[in-house]
């Protein structure tokens, strides 16, 4: 394992410290407990947006703190949900009195820790609503699982909910917009290689040179099935078809097409995937109205990508288009 780190035990702290210095115009980094908050938080008159989760998915979530998106992000240890004692203070820091929305990816650890944090914040008089993001169609039969995982669709939830909060929506409305995004977004991912968690030092799963994992999550978990290596177009079809089917996408609809890199795949390849995914969306008579291509929800240096499709209506499109100014997303 070769990594540009000093010590697995300090990598998250040092990285977030560096992040804070590089983006001091946007964010303030609070140490002990560790969280990242808008430099101008709390923003008066606005519902606060807080997200968080294990580190290793950068730029998620700290890279999305700023006007038009999150008010605070709570980074946990690598691939490990943060604890209530950091989430709760971040929640308080994001609160200007109109309540706070927790945006939580659906993993047992994240759900439980945010749950406790919400109780703690509530005890301090801050009203908290929670939206659980669960866009990963790779997890089928949610009756027999911990439920669908939250993956790249989280970016859309954070962006659009952020825009809703920005225009002055109250907590219930922001939560319901976030739920609407979640209900209309689906993702599925592939890994060509595993990632290496710094403290573990070994690949999170073993893949031979001619195998890939279809239906991976973003924590180095193995995927749903292992198949022989295939072409970009074939792989893209394996990701996109379940996404479109599950979404029940029909002709004439408008979508955001988001091809997300897992960290170790070159941008040029993500555009090859985008090209085919776009073909597939258009083959259903739907229209790609907005696009996003890049490394936004990563698994350290994992090679791979995911395809996310969000069904857009006029309001969601306007909120997606609304100004955003964060380290990783800006327009």
């Amino acid at each position: 394992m070769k990594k540009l780190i000093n010590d697995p035990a300090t990598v998250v702290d040092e990285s977030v410290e560096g992040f804070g210095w590089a983006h001091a115009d946007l964010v303030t980094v609070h140490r002990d407990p560790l969280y990242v908050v808008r430099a101008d938080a709390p923003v008066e008159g606005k519902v606060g947006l807080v997200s968080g989760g294990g580190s290793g998915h950068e730029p998620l979530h700290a890279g999305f703190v700023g006007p038009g998106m999150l008010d605070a992000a709570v980074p946990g240890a690598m691939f490990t949900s943060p604890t209530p004692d950091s989430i709760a203070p971040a929640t308080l820091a994001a609160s200007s009195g109109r309540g706070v929305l927790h945006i939580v990816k659906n993993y047992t650890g994240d759900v439980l820790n945010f749950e406790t944090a919400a109780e703690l914040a509530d005890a301090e008089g801050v009203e908290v609503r929670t939206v659980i993001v669960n866009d990963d169609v790779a997890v089928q039969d949610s009756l027999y699982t911990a439920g669908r995982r939250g993956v790249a669709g989280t970016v859309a939830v954070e962006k659009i909910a952020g825009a809703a909060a920005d225009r002055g929506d109250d907590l219930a409305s922001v939560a319901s917009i976030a739920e609407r995004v979640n209900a209309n977004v689906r993702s599925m991912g592939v890994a060509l290689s595993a990632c290496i968690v710094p403290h573990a030092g070994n690949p999170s799963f073993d893949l031979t040179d001619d195998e890939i994992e279809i239906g991976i999550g973003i924590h180095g978990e193995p995927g749903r099935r292992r198949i022989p290596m295939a072409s970009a177009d074939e792989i893209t079809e394996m990701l996109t078809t379940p996404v479109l089917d599950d979404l029940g996408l029909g002709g004439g609809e408008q979508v955001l097409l988001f091809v997300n890199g897992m960290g170790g795949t070159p941008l040029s390849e993500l555009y090859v995937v985008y090209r085919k995914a776009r073909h597939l969306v258009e083959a259903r008579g739907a229209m790609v109205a907005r696009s996003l291509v890049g490394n936004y929800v990563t698994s350290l240096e994992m090679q791979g990508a995911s395809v996310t499709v969000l069904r857009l209506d006029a309001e969601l499109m306007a909120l997606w288009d609304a100004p955003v100014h964060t380290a990783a997303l800006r327009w």
Partner: protein
Amino acid sequence: MALDVAWAVRWVRLTAGLVTEHRAYLTELDRQIGDNDHGENLYRGYTAVVARLDALEGPPAQVGDVLKLVATTLMSTVGGAAGPLYGTAYLRAAKVTGLDELDAGAVVAMLEAGLEGIVARGKAVPGEKTMVDAWSPAVAAAQAACVEGVDPVVVLEAAATAAEEGAVATDPMVATKGRASYLGERSAGHRDPGAASSALLVRAAHTAAVDGA
């Protein structure tokens, strides 16, 4: 013999030792069907627990005080699924152990409360390939061993053995809770990391009692 606050401190320190010793093993189990961090998470947590025990001015008064310290420390340092689950287990166990000494019945009550805490947070039932599959047989064995006048060591011995067997029994299970559930059938053939760490924890309680006898 009855189990006092010194036993509780020994128990917690022994658990920390076992977690440290098995850190890589637990992480490797989690690599197979999870996200490669369970040993690391617990190591971080119990290292903090030991540090807080060491930093105490005077010794805690009662068993429950020790368990409460463990609960709050794990909750604030472990994260992931195991942090809140173990944290709640210790918290509930602490509530029923505000005692100077635990007899066999109190030991059973403590284990029952721990299991209740895990189930209350995680909603898992036995057979879902989680730590519940270590705790649940441990509680049942403790209840069965708890006859009139029995030494609490005997109860803990029964619980520890049952927890270990319960952990082994997770091997063939297909996970339906936690991260391993995403693997579906592929989760079979691997031991659940949380069940394995739970077995260490209960065994430490027994060893601490034997050491003090």
